[in-house]
């Protein structure tokens, strides 16, 4: 039984939430409580399948391929690989992302139990939430570019419907429309570049495309389109304007899963740059090698994202929107690290040619480590803050910072969670944000000192923005209209507590996470040949 589960875990990870999504309305007919338990069980099952897969995968970290319908992945020879079948391929990077994508929905459904109590349309809410989970996990696990497009669309449709879940609020409808326009255009251009690849290489499989890629004129166009589309979906400035609306106007438990979908798009970008174009990144034939161009472009955009996010966060008076602008800045930090890693791509690590042991790591390696660890930290920190903002809204029915005050008296635990969240997001020790931001500061400083200084200064400004919010929302005199505010239900506290515990755990033991989860992911990104040969080298 357990062997069967391990063998088929990649498929089951997507199949379980998908099946659960369509069973939810049926089970909802019985009563709300049974349905909530069912949804929590489904997400719990998905997360445990992911853990099972990780447990099986991590010790030797060789890519796993799961071919749907069985049989070998590759029906051609290794010279002319012809991988026609639909397959999932798991390497260190997807395994890491799958863990994030499994954790966030689990927390979201636990939180929703209290958060959505006595609201209408919950069956549809949970159905869409599970569909979003299935789409997100599919995006992360798939080894096929067209399937990536399909899962991207599943995720976008489900998340758009969830952003506009409160149809009586005109701003959430507006946010939903903005989101669907952005994601429809992004996905269509992604499909366009899939067609460019198919026209040239007769393949949809990422490994086969990566194996054959020649970096000709059409490939350059496809690269530009793919990076633009995926960065737009990931909310990199200047295409960030949908993020504050989408995070700020959707229910908090949707917003936290939305953070996951944004990061899944970011993962898509990483996969395109490092795996599909991995062979051509250090193309010395051209005057400036591609890694430098992409690296500087990403750094320029990420600096813009950090500035936009931080300055607009200081200005906002809406609690959730302010957090959403900080999320824009955090995405900027991740891209900053990726850009720095690309510029230093040739100096990732020095390997002893005789024994094959790693002698020393370059700054590019640390940049990539910091960036990937920051993906996890961003999901946890921004997720926690969004949940806190949701809890404040739940208790007071108020989102404007100016109208809130003195909440610490009645909402002790929420206050503590907010404190943990904002210290983590601004990179204060001993929270998780410190570990990843320190890696980012160090490695970007080596690329250019100015970048490191900007990164540190903007972190301090994020802290300043949050201290302002903390002062005006949780401290200060009691506001008469908020006298009868009570602490939020236990399920919401429990959900926030899980994230807070993970934040502190990573903050105290960053080495454990870096060694066991982040380094395999960095190696997987760096070693595109390993990803390719798992498919093309015969199964």
């Amino acid at each position, binding site marked *: 039984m357990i062997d069967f589960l391990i063998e088929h875990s990649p498929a089951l990870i997507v199949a379980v939430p998908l099946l659960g999504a369509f069973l939810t309305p049926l089970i909802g007919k019985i009563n709300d409580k049974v349905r909530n338990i069912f949804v929590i069980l489904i997400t719990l099952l998905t997360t445990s399948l992911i853990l099972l897969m990780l447990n099986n995968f991590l010790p030797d970290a060789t890519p796993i391929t799961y071919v749907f319908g069985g049989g070998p992945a590759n029906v051609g020879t290794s010279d002319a690989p012809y991988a026609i079948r639909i397959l999932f391929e798991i390497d260190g990077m997807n395994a890491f992302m799958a863990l994030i994508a499994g954790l966030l929905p689990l927390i979201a459904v636990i939180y929703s139990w209290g958060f959505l109590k006595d609201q209408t349309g919950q069956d549809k809410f949970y159905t869409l939430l599970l569909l979003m989970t299935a789409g997100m996990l599919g995006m992360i696990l798939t080894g096929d570019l*067209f399937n990536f*497009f*399909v899962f991207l*669309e599943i995720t*976008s*449709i489900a998340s*758009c*419907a969830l952003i*506009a879940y409160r*149809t009586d609020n*005109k*701003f959430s*409808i*507006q*946010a*939903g*429309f903005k989101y*669907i*326009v952005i994601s*429809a*255009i992004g996905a*269509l251009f992604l*499909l*366009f570049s*899939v*067609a460019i690849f*198919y*026209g040239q290489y007769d393949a*949809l499989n990422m490994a086969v495309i990566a194996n054959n890629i020649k970096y000709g004129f059409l490939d350059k166009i496809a690269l530009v389109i793919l990076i633009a589309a995926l960065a737009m979906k990931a909310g990199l400035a200047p295409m960030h304007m949908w993020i504050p*609306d989408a995070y*700020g*106007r959707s229910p908090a438990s949707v917003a936290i899963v939305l953070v996951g979908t944004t990061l899944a798009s970011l993962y898509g970008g990483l996969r395109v740059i490092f795996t599909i174009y991995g062979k051509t990144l250090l193309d010395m034939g051209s005057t400036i090698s591609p890694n430098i161009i992409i690296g500087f472009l990403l750094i320029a955009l990420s600096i813009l994202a950090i500035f936009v996010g931080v300055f607009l966060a200081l200005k*906002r*008076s*809406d609690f959730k*929107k302010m957090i959403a602008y900080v999320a824009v800045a955090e995405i900027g930090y991740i891209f900053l690290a990726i850009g720095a890693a690309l510029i230093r791509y040739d100096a990732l690590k020095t390997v002893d040619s005789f024994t094959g042991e790693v002698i020393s790591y370059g700054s590019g390696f640390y940049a990539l480590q910091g960036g990937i660890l920051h993906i996890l930290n961003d999901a946890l920190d921004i997720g926690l803050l969004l949940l806190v903002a949701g809890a404040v809204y739940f208790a007071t029915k108020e*989102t*404007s910072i100016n109208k809130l005050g003195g909440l610490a008296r009645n909402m002790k635990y929420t206050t503590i969670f907010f404190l943990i969240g904002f210290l983590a997001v601004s990179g204060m020790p001993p929270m998780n944000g410190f570990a990843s931001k320190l890696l980012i500061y160090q490695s970007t400083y080596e690329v250019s000192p100015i970048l490191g200084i900007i990164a540190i200064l903007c972190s301090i400004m994020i802290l300043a923005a949050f201290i302002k919010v903390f002062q005006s929302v949780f401290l200060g005199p009691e506001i008469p209209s908020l006298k009868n505010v009570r602490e939020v239900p236990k399920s919401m506290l429990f959900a926030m507590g899980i994230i807070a515990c993970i934040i502190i755990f990573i903050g105290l033991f960053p080495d454990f996470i870096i060694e066991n989860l982040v380094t395999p992911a960095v190696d997987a990104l760096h070693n595109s040949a390993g990803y390719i040969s798992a498919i093309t080298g015969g199964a």
Partner: protein
Amino acid sequence: MDVFYVPYLAVAALVLVGLYAVIFKRNLIKIVIGITLIESGVNLFLITLGYKEGSIAPIYTASPSSIMSMPVPQALTLTSIVIGVAVLALMLTLVIHIYRHYGTLDVRKIKEDEE
């Protein structure tokens, strides 16, 4: 110029007109139409890639011609059309809701969410 290139020109025209509509038009319905135009352009691109002159559908065993068109792009297009319908339906639903709230579809008159 070869006749073979005409579909590609149509693809470029459809995508560019669609992008123009999305970026510059003020009416929400026209923005939705723009997205559908881009989608048609991409679908046409996929179909054109798999087409060969004088080819037949790859479903006959005793076929009159040995040239067959590639079935994969057609399968992709079919999937893409189905997804497109879902996205279109969702977008129109949101447009209806926006109209109910604001009584207009002009983006200049729809109040921006400033808070």
